[in-house]
Structure formats: C-alpha cells, structure tokens
C-alpha cells in the first residue's frame, strides 16, 4: 500500500512514543538492578565500585527467609482455598438461579472496590471483637478474600467459553451428573482453573497492605519483611532482594505465557 510522507511521520512518532513508554515501565527495574551491585552502602550513580555482597546479605537475612516461607505457605493455602470456593461459585453462578444469587456475587466481588487497608483493618477488628487468635490462618483468610474475585472472573470466563454440547452428549448417553462433571466439565475447564490458581497465588504472594494489619512478627510475609527492612536500613540489600523478586516473577510469567498465552488469559486477544 502506498504510504504518504505524513503516514511515515506518524509511524515514527508512534515508535518513539512506544519506546519512551516502555522505557518508563522498565526504568525502575534497570535502576534497581544497577543499584543492587553498588559496593557502598550509600547509593550513588554510577556506582564507584561493584560487589555482590548485598545478594549474600539478602540470602542471610533471617527475616527474608522466614517471610519467604510464610508467603509461600499463605499463597499456597490462599490460592487453593480461593480456587475451590471461586470455581464452585462461578459454576453455580453460571448454571443456576437461586435465592440471593446476585447479593452473594456482589459481596464476593466487593473486595475489588473495598481498599485493601479496609479489608485488613476489618479482619483485625473482627478478630479483636470476637476474641479470636491471630495466626497464619488469619493472614490466609485475608488473602482468600482479596484474590477470590480474580479466580471467580477467570473461571467464569472459561465457563462461558465452554461448549455445552459435550456435557449434553454425555448426559444423553446416561452419564450421571458427578461422572459428567469429573470426566467432561473439569478437564475442559482445567486451563482456566490452573491460570486462575497461578494468578491467585502471585497476587497473594505480592499482597502487602492488608497483610500489614494482621501479621505478627512470627507470621510476617515477605513483602512486610521487605517493608520493615526499608524502614530500618538504607543499604542496597533490598535492591538485591528486588532483583531476585523480579527475576522469579518474570520467569514464572514467561512460563505461563508459553503454556497459556497471556493475551488469552487476560482476554485482550
């Protein structure tokens, strides 16, 4: 197709704009990467000399190890519970009409609007008012509340794209409901369920604000441990920690992208 001079100009302007925006997105991560190898405890750009000692420090700092263990535990239980509850709800919401269906839906999706600090404070004062102990399960409960809407949405989209004819064929051949569910519906939903669970686990692993309200020193999650570190020390240990964090999440996302294609999962295809 013939392109005029102004079309070329527009193309170039678009490319420059795109590069600038992508640059804005990656800039902090490049900077934190450079800073993590800064020899001195005081930041300077460019670093005067280089060192990997902050990585050693990050690995040896006990609160990070403890936080990582807590975070993995909370993310596994939180995502697992949210997956079971969210998938079950998405299924009945998609298939049946029942009393208070929309009320239930509204309440379960409300954490998309209710700020995380309000959810954290709410659970904190609830446990205080009911004289309940605050332990790792309190943190799990907060995380389930926060990630549930994302699981519900992910499974609901998969259910809407599900071809009902397969289930109907199995039913007409005499398949009992549980058998149809386990051998037809569940396998067809599996990609959506796995994607939903992975996103829930990542969101839970990252959750900070609401956790801050309900953790104790023993149940502190990794983001809370990192926040407490910045408040006490100014050295680049947290930069090293951030680089490890970014690398782990990017690797996981790349894996998810290879298997599921992110644009499908996020419905932007």
């Amino acid at each position, binding site marked *: 197709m013939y392109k005029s001079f102004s079309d070329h100009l527009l193309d170039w302007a678009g490319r420059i704009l795109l590069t600038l925006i992508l640059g804005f997105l990656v800039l902090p991560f490049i900077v934190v990467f450079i800073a993590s190898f800064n020899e001195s405890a005081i930041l300077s750009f460019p670093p005067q000399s280089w060192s990997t000692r902050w990585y050693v420090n990050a690995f040896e700092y006990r609160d990070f190890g403890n936080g990582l263990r807590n975070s993995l535990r909370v993310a596994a239980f939180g995502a697992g519970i949210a997956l079971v509850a969210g998938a079950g709800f998405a299924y009945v919401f998609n298939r049946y009409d029942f009393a208070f269906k929309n009320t239930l839906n509204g309440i379960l999706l409300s954490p998309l609007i209710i*700020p995380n600090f309000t959810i954290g404070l709410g659970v904190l004062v609830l446990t205080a008012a009911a004289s309940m102990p605050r332990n790792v399960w309190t943190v799990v409960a907060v995380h389930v509340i926060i990630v549930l809407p994302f699981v519900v949405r992910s499974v609901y989209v998969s259910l809407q794209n599900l071809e009902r004819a397969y289930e109907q064929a199995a039913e007409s051949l005499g398949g009992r409901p549980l058998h149809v569910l386990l051998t037809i519906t569940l396998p067809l939903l599996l990609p959506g369920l796995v994607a939903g669970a992975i996103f829930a686990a990542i969101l839970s692993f990252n959750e900070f604000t609401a956790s801050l309200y309900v953790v104790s020193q023993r149940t502190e999650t990794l983001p809370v441990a990192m926040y407490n570190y910045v408040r006490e020390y100014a050295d680049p240990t947290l930069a090293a920690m951030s680089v490890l964090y970014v690398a782990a999440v990017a690797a996981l*996302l790349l894996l998810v992208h290879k298997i599921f294609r992110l*644009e499908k999962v996020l419905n932007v295809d």
Partner: protein
Amino acid sequence: MTKRPFLGWFASPSILIAFGITASVLAIVQYSLRAHVPGSIDPGGFTLANFATLWHVAYGLVFLNSLLLCIWTALFALLIGYPLAYAMVRARSLSLRSAILLISLTPLFLGEIVRTYSWMIVLGNRGFLNSVLLQTGLIERPINLMFTMSGVVIALVHFTLPIVVVMLAAALSHIDRNLERAATSLGAGRIRVFLTVTLPLSIPGVVAATSTAFAWTFSAFATPQMIGGGQVQTISTMVYQVGFASFNFPLAASLSLMGLLFAVAVLAIFNTGMRQLERHGAH
C-alpha cells in the same frame, strides 16, 4: 435425583467467605461507633465522637489529597496507557506483541513494595534521576521528588499502568476493524479514523479503566507511605497512622468507613456522569 446437582456443595465455601467479608465490614461499622480506650485495642461505649473528630479541616484536606492523587494518577495512566494498549493490540509482528505484553504486564505481578522501592532509588536526591541530571549539567541542585505529590504520582502511574493497559487492550481488541476500514475507504485519514471511529468505540473501556485506576490508587498504601514519607497524607496512610501509631482503632475504623463511602460516591458520580455524556453523544 435432584434437579440441581452440586448446588449446595459448590456454593457453601463461597457463602462462608461472603459471611466473613460481611462480618469484617460490620466490625468496622461497629468499631467506628465506639469510644477509644487509650492503650487498648478493645473499644469503649457507643458514641458518635469519632465522626465529630473527622469533621475537621485536617481530615478534609486528607480526603482532598487522596482525590487529587487519584485524579492525576488516572489521567496520566490513561494518557500513557492508551497508546501502549493500542500498540499491543495492533502490532503486526507477534514477537513485538509478546514483548509489549510481557513488559507492560510483569509490573502487575510485582507488588507494591518492589516497585515503590525501585522508584525510591530513581527519585531520591542521590538517586538515579538526579545523578543523571546533575552530571549532564541540566540542573545545578537536586530536584526534590521524594516526599512530594509529583513523586507519588509518578510511582502511582507506574503502579496502575498495567491494569489500565489490560482493560484498554481488552476494549480495543473487541472493536470491529471493518468499521475502521469503511472509514478509510471513504477517504478518512488515519488520525481522523482514530478520532471519529476507534476512540469513540473504546470509550466504555476508557471509563472502566478510569474507575479501576481510581480504585487502585485509592487502595494504594506503600507508595504514598514510602515515597510520600509522611509529607503526602492519604486516607490509606492516615488510617494506618491512626491505628498503629496512636492505637486509636475506633477512629481508624470511622476514617476507613468514610473513605469507603467517599470512594463509592466518587465512582458513582463518575459513572453516572459518563453515562449521561454517552447518551448525549449518541444523538
């Protein structure tokens, strides 16, 4: 055989969670109506004193500050996110699309702490930006970005950009390209096609993205707390401060309750306004 298999089994866990959410919100309402007993997390008798305390210029300014922060962040996130979403959806090369997708979405899964800390290193007085500007001689004295509204907005735009891009890309990818082709075949240039066809068709996505950017910014705590450093107060930092510095949980509860009502009201006004605008636009 029942007609509706699994209904009870499948709905039960979510009903339990719904009760948990409701109970937490009710606990906040309950606490907001109780007196503060210094030195205890357990509240005293029923009172409206907390709301009277909030009826003060200082708290009004905090609400105003939060609102301004949300507006600026949503505005810039839209301005930057729209071209990015457009490029993501329309890029012809698959590898470029994947690259844009991964770069814009990875931050979504990095949480507030890592991203905010990274911005602290960029924006600080001895940080990356000031070092570069000083060494190239563009400025003589470091620009103060830490502990300022601008610094918080920059980091918050970075924080909300990925979700804004996802929502805009979803809207843009569902636009029927034949409408654009029709406009082109009738002689419209690319800019005109964009302004008269693509942009208007993507408005519902823009509205949804704005609402989400608003809700995310309103909910953000680590960014205003760490970059604002006490100089930029928002409802989220104020609730934490009242709760954990003064241990006045009844006041923290009433503050977050008012904050929630405020956020819902602003979103309702915004959505109603946009619907009115759309209805007028349709004529």
